């Protein structure tokens, strides 16, 4: 890393939730510290790629919109993920491609048009205060982010960036990778150990019914509403929870657990969403509908490795 501390942006309007996210905080979950990292791994990875950054570089995750940034220098950036009505000065900002901006330019995020979370990468990467090996910002734990204290962005704050090694080439993500988040989706789920404890009707419904994304959705987890699932196990002795676990509390309404989930828990689980299915869920707005599809490990691993191959 270069030693120089460059100011990249000034926050001229703080939205409800803008968080710095690198790949996440690893090797510390035994301390009760959660994983963090981008809720949408797919869009985050593309943002870095298009800005010429290696895997793991810190990116800004903007949820809902509302944020406005003023560039303090000429920079190369990339915007991916949700369309939050983003403007570059007075024009609609192009997404899913490399973009050069100039000192004094404004990036203004509106409200969700398509998806929920947008990713802003800057060539060289944002520069946060690493805590326990990561700058991933987890508000609940007061860890990470620009100040290391887990704060979301505040008005007037200056955002530091690293000097890029070189100006990245202009790139556009393939159209097949530019996601449309508006349509009902089907999420791949790897069945887990307690799946046989759900009764037959519940299993049928889990994979055939339509599930609705509830208002109670954040970076910890997304609650889904639909038919009531019944499991012979009501609670387990608490155990580690992996990314994308779909737990079913006694009310029978599943909760898919995302990056900021608690490290251990004791509800029976249908299984785990694949990392990319969890990413897709993180772009769903309350009220959107989805289905689950059981997927085998070979297919899921092949699919995930193909994705990682592009970036790592």
């Amino acid at each position, binding site marked *: 890393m270069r030693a120089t501390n460059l100011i990249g942006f000034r926050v001229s309007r703080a939205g409800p939730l803008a968080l710095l996210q690198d790949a996440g905080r690893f090797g510390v979950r*035994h*301390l009760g*510290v959660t994983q963090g990292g981008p809720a949408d791994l797919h869009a985050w990875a593309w943002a870095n790629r298009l800005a010429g950054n290696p895997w793991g570089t810190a990116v800004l995750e903007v949820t809902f919109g509302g944020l406005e940034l003023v560039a303090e220098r000429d920079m190369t950036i990339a915007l991916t993920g949700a369309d939050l009505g983003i403007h570059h000065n007075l024009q609609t900002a192009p997404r899913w491609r490399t973009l050069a901006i100039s000192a004094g330019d404004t990036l203004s995020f509106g409200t969700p048009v398509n998806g929920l979370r947008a990713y802003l990468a800057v060539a060289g990467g944002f520069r946060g205060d690493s805590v326990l090996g990561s700058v991933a910002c987890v508000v609940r734990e007061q860890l990470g982010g620009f100040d290391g204290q887990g704060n979301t962005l505040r008005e007037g704050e200056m955002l530091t960036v690293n000097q890029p090694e070189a100006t990245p080439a202009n790139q556009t993500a393939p159209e097949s990778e530019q996601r449309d988040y508006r349509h009902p989706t089907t999420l791949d789920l*790897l069945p887990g150990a307690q799946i046989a404890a759900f009764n037959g009707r519940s299993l049928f419904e889990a994979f055939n019914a339509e599930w609705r994304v509830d208002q109670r959705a954040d970076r910890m987890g997304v609650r889904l509403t639909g038919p009531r699932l019944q499991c012979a196990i009501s609670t387990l002795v608490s155990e580690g929870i992996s990314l994308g676990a779909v737990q079913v509390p006694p009310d029978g309404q599943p909760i898919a657990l995302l990056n900021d989930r608690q490290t251990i828990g004791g509800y029976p689980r249908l*299984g785990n969403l694949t990392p990319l299915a969890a990413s897709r869920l993180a772009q769903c707005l309350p009220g959107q509908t989805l289905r689950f599809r059981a997927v085998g490990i070979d297919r899921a*691993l092949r699919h995930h490795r193909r994705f990682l191959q592009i970036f790592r």
Partner: protein
Amino acid sequence: MKPARLPCLERAGLDGWMVRLFDDIEEHNLLWLTALAEACEAVFGDDLLDLVPSYTTLLVVFDPFRISPCEARQQLIEILDHLKPADAAASGALHELPTWYDPQTGPDLQRVAELSGLSVASVIEAHSSREYRVFALGFAPGFAFMGLLDPALNCPRLDTPRQKVPAGSVAIAGQQTAAYPMVTPGGWNLIGRTPARLFDRNRDGFSLLRVGDRVSFVPVDRATFEAQGGNTTPATGEVTK
């Protein structure tokens, strides 16, 4: 359900295996879980992303780009074949947590006394006369689930959790006890407070307590509590939604 034969490996996504060693919560489990975690660190090396020990299980999280679940499973089977429990005498650091037991810091002392049919003094005596083991960390960074409590003190969680439990609060629920490292919501019965810094950025690894550590609570008076930097702000007795 018929109990599965133990130990067993359960799929936990495409980057994890849940190693289930036991059915029931017992102190002895920790020696096996500690040994298993150490063996995983040695064998998996850089392929390992995280280990999450809990009462009866160890969640092993690996990098799916470097190692497949099938390969990871083979390695775990070999580790389990040769696993021996850690040495009981050598395992687990001992921590003494000074604790000011008082209605001001422990607004549920009276409730616990009523539920258990003991006097407040006996509740304090029962809680502070045992050495506990840390079974798991979770809920919040540095939050250690410890046990097992004197069965006489077994009290359910509050019906409605408090919105803000002060940092350092010493609490009990069911068979377990804990101290809150930071201000969080919480539904456990608050019986006192420790000035110990349970999660401290200036400490290597931040968390004072680790799985397998031994902990005892040492009653101190208000003056000692304050001298050690304890915060005397009353916890709200009122339970708010």
